[in-house]
């Protein structure tokens, strides 16, 4: 395990009496790409602003490299931020923008010039030194904002929905660029987004947040394949979330029918939720299925067909490369390891899950 670089300890924050973060704990390692993922208002941006020092927590501590930096102003922190709408200095040239932090650190002119050239090369904008920010496209401005931050050689780069204002194609290109830069620079990225696809593509670790609580921390694969609660399952990708009962270890009753599964330790006859991804629902001839239903909806999606199947009073979402026409009776099968069992949330707000990465 790599060295821990940042610790957020028992961080609470409220605005106008509204709780935004409630005793949040998060540990971030060196050279890790961590994504804070969640719907708007989940507290992810506030977490990032606390890290950057733009707002202080009501309670709790921020520890950076073993040192408590909770009270340290942003200009004294060894992290740099890429802001949501770039926040370039419109009255300065690109070169002046990039040199801003270096001049404060009283670097020599030749050092600064070298750095500007290096940074522009890194973001594929060689020769843009004397342009003004307003004359650049959104994607270019975004890359300048990144260049401006990384020339200061921060240990951590904070990125607040940096690709939110870009169109889809540009966004995908920038995702690869960011991964490349992270590998080239070897620094830690803390990335905030509400786009689950972006999070799954880029991250080493995803932190799913909702209503000020961390819902789950894990690798993209584990978050997608083993969501710990209904919120995560619903937020990451499409899924069938079905109330069920755990009869005993490795046996679950879904909509009154028994399915084999692989989970253990929930106890006997325990109410649970199960998550089944639409691509894991296998449609077969009625006789071969564990349960039977009727196709009620069909859309062609390119790589697959999306179908809805009415079975046992539930509308199953199914992705399949085989077409079953509307009205046809089908059988449904699910492999045991594709049934993910989750505890029912204890309250509506869903309790925080505090786990170390």
């Amino acid at each position, binding site marked *: 395990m790599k060295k821990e670089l940042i610790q957020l300890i028992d961080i609470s924050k409220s605005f106008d009496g509204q709780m935004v973060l409630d005793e949040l704990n998060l540990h971030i390692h060196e050279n890790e790409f961590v994504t804070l993922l969640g719907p708007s208002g989940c507290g992810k941006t506030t977490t990032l602003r606390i890290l950057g020092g733009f707002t202080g927590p009501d309670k709790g501590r921020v520890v950076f490299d073993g040192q408590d930096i909770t009270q340290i102003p942003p*200009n004294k922190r060894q992290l740099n931020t890429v*802001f949501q709408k770039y926040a370039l200095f419109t009255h300065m040239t690109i070169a002046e923008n990039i040199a*801003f*932090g270096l001049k*404060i*650190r009283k670097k020599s002119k030749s050092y600064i010039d070298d750095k500007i050239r290096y940074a522009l090369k890194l973001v594929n904008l060689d020769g843009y030194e004397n342009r003004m920010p307003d004359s650049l496209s959104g994607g270019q401005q975004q890359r300048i904002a990144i260049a401006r*931050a990384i020339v200061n050689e921060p240990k951590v780069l904070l990125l607040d929905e940096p690709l939110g204002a870009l169109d889809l194609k540009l966004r995908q290109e920038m995702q690869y660029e960011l991964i490349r830069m992270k590998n080239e620079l070897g620094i830690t990225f803390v990335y905030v987004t509400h786009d689950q696809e972006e999070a799954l593509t880029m991250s080493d670790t995803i932190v799913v947040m909702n209503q000020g609580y961390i819902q789950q921390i894990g690798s993209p694969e584990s978050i997608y394949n083993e969501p710990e609660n209904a919120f995560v399952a619903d937020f990451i990708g499409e899924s069938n979330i079905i109330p069920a009962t755990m009869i005993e270890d490795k046996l679950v009753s879904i909509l009154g029918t028994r399915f084999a599964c692989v989970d253990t330790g929930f106890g006997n006859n325990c109410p649970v939720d199960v998550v089944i991804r639409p691509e894991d629902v296998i449609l077969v001839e009625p006789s071969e299925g564990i349960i039977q239903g009727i196709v009620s909806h069909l859309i062609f999606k390119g790589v697959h067909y999306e179908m809805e199947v009415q079975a046992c009073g539930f509308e199953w979402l199914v992705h399949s490369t085989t077409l079953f026409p509307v009205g046809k009776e089908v059988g449904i099968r699910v492999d045991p390891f594709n049934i993910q069992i989750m505890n029912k949330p204890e309250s509506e707000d869903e309790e925080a899950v505090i786990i170390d990465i």
Partner: protein
Amino acid sequence: MTSKNKWLSTPYIVWSVVFIIVPLGMILYYGLTDATGAFTLDNITAIASAGHAKALRVSLFLSLVSTLVCFLLAYPLAMILARMQTKRHNFIILIFILPMWMNFLLRTLAWQTLLEKNGVINHVLTFLHLPTLKIINTPAAIVLGMVYNFLPFMVLPLYNSLAKIDVNVINAARDLGANHFYTFIRIILPLSVPGIISGITMVFIPALTTFVISALLGGGKLLLIGDVIEQEFTRTSNWHLGSGLSMVLMIFIVINMILSAIFDKDGEGSML
């Protein structure tokens, strides 16, 4: 909304020509002719005569001081206001426009009551055992009157240009290592230049050309260039001389217009 509606601009273009361009032409005509209608530069060179030159010097000095005081008072205020909640925007503007609903002459006159030897302020100062103020009928009182009347015209453009600065731009500067002072000098101040230029114009020009404030608070002892021009028109009825002196004033106005055209291209520093 399309080009075929161009004729819609006709009323305004006609109005501008008749009531803005032509009248300025009239001043040029009167300023460059004498009573017989012959061409002359005498009305303009008259500014060099001892009395007129002094009036212009005093006006320039007092209006520069007033503009500076306005700027120093307004900038911190505008910064504080700009960082308040944006939904209060209209309310903030109202606070500074509301006093205009009390007549400008009366408001200025009220300063006599406040500043007089036995005025309100001196009563308060005596009560607090502080030394009393003796500024009524001095240039200081004129400056105060100018600052009082024109302060809103400095605050509002500054407020507007400062409120437009994205908080994250300021955060970005801090994030890159700038302390508060450096952030102010390199980021906030340069980005508010449109507001500064517009504010200076909106204060300096009226202060330079006023003819009432000096009469009300200066005790009529100091003659400003505005007083001189006003008298040429209303008392001596020498329109030619008055127009010539106005043309001298217009030099300063034109300089100001050019400055605002350069630094405030998009009207970002506008008052509203």
